[in-house]
């Protein structure tokens, strides 16, 4: 009877990869270390891009933040502790990088011209105003509006609430994982999450009501 091999969890697999990379680096087999790390990058890249984008709301900034986080994780793989999941450790690096970028952006914006704002007061990428190659212009407009509203409302959340909401809801992390990623207490995470949801609902309802009112008045003016 063949011995049953227990399935390796993602956490164990990550820990093994991290150990391999560390060993390769120590032995000077850098090509192999990089190849192994490439697997990790592939596994977490999309998730990292989502988190960074929701955090920074700028594609180029998010791209750089993700790259920097992966580079930093590779360079400090020696300090990775196997008792923590790699994902959690990496997310912490990514979030810290995003926070630094946000701070730098705020400092920069103090000295620069105000960004382009849409009628809801949400910053928009100038490229959004260009015609796109969407399937249906009406669908694209409605979808973009919905997303802009949502992203605008998320951006209005206080920083901690936003971080907890994004990690819990967008990324599907448990309160314990979010606690490990952010360094917040688990019960604090739950409180922040609840408050974020309540506030977000309030903001979106208010925005929808404002939009409807604006639409009615526009039609009346016509």
């Amino acid at each position, binding site marked *: 009877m063949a011995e049953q091999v227990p399935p390796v969890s993602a956490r164990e697999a990550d820990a093994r990869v991290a150990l391999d990379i560390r060993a390769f680096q120590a032995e000077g087999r850098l090509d192999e270390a990089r190849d192994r*790390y490439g697997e990790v990058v592939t596994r977490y890249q999309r998730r990292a*891009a989502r988190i960074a984008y929701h955090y920074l709301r700028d*594609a180029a900034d998010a791209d750089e933040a993700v790259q920097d986080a*992966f580079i930093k994780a590779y360079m400090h793989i020696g300090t990775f502790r196997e008792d923590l999941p790699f994902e959690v450790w990496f997310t912490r690096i990514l979030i810290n990088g995003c926070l630094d970028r946000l701070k730098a952006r705020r400092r920069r914006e103090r000295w620069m011209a105000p960004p382009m704002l849409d009628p809801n007061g949400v910053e928009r990428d100038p490229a959004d105003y260009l015609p796109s190659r969407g399937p249906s212009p009406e669908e694209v407009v409605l979808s973009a509006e919905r997303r802009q509203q949502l992203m605008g409302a998320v951006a209005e959340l206080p920083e901690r609430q936003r971080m907890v909401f994004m990690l819990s809801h967008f990324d599907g992390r448990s309160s314990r994982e979010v606690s490990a990623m952010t360094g917040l207490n688990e019960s604090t995470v739950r409180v922040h999450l609840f408050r974020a949801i309540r506030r977000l609902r309030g903001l979106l309802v208010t925005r929808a009501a404002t939009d409807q009112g604006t639409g009615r008045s526009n039609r009346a003016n016509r």
Partner: protein
Amino acid sequence: MRIADIVFRQGHLSEEALTTAILGGDRPAHLEQCEACSQRARDLSLWLGNVRAEALEAADEVFPPERLALQHAQIMRRLEQIDAPPRVIAFPAQAVHAPRTHSERRVSPAWVGVAAAAGLAIGLVGGQISARVTPTASVPAPAQTQQAEPAQVAPAGPVTATSQPVNASLTTDWERYVPEDLLLLDQATPSLLETQLASAR
């Protein structure tokens, strides 16, 4: 069920309890029994699902697979640069530190300053000394040189009245210093002063 829910909400669940239940926390029994609360839970769950779907769609639209592939390649390239040993660009061979010859040896700037100060001091002292010495320079020259002068400076042309005192003094001086051996010879030759006076008349 919480006391607050019983007292303030007629036994219905609070938003917090509802959210906790939806997000995978404790699921109160009330939720199964109360149609209103289960409807609220469904609505909230649907709303949260929509929000999540919209947010993920927005992020995935910005980061399509092509962009992710490009990002992956950039990350790997940057890692390669980090791992590669740093290259040091060598300077041209001429610029390599060659031992300096004696003539090329650089003088310390401090010595230049010292030399300039010494030059200035020497100049000042020398100037002072020369200024004190200059008045004494008009002292008469030694007698031997004055003896030779009459023969050299003797005017060939007619003697004017203004030159007479000079000639007289020259004659006097000459007579004073003429050796006695030459006096006879002097007496045999006509006196310069007398000759000049005679010609002037």
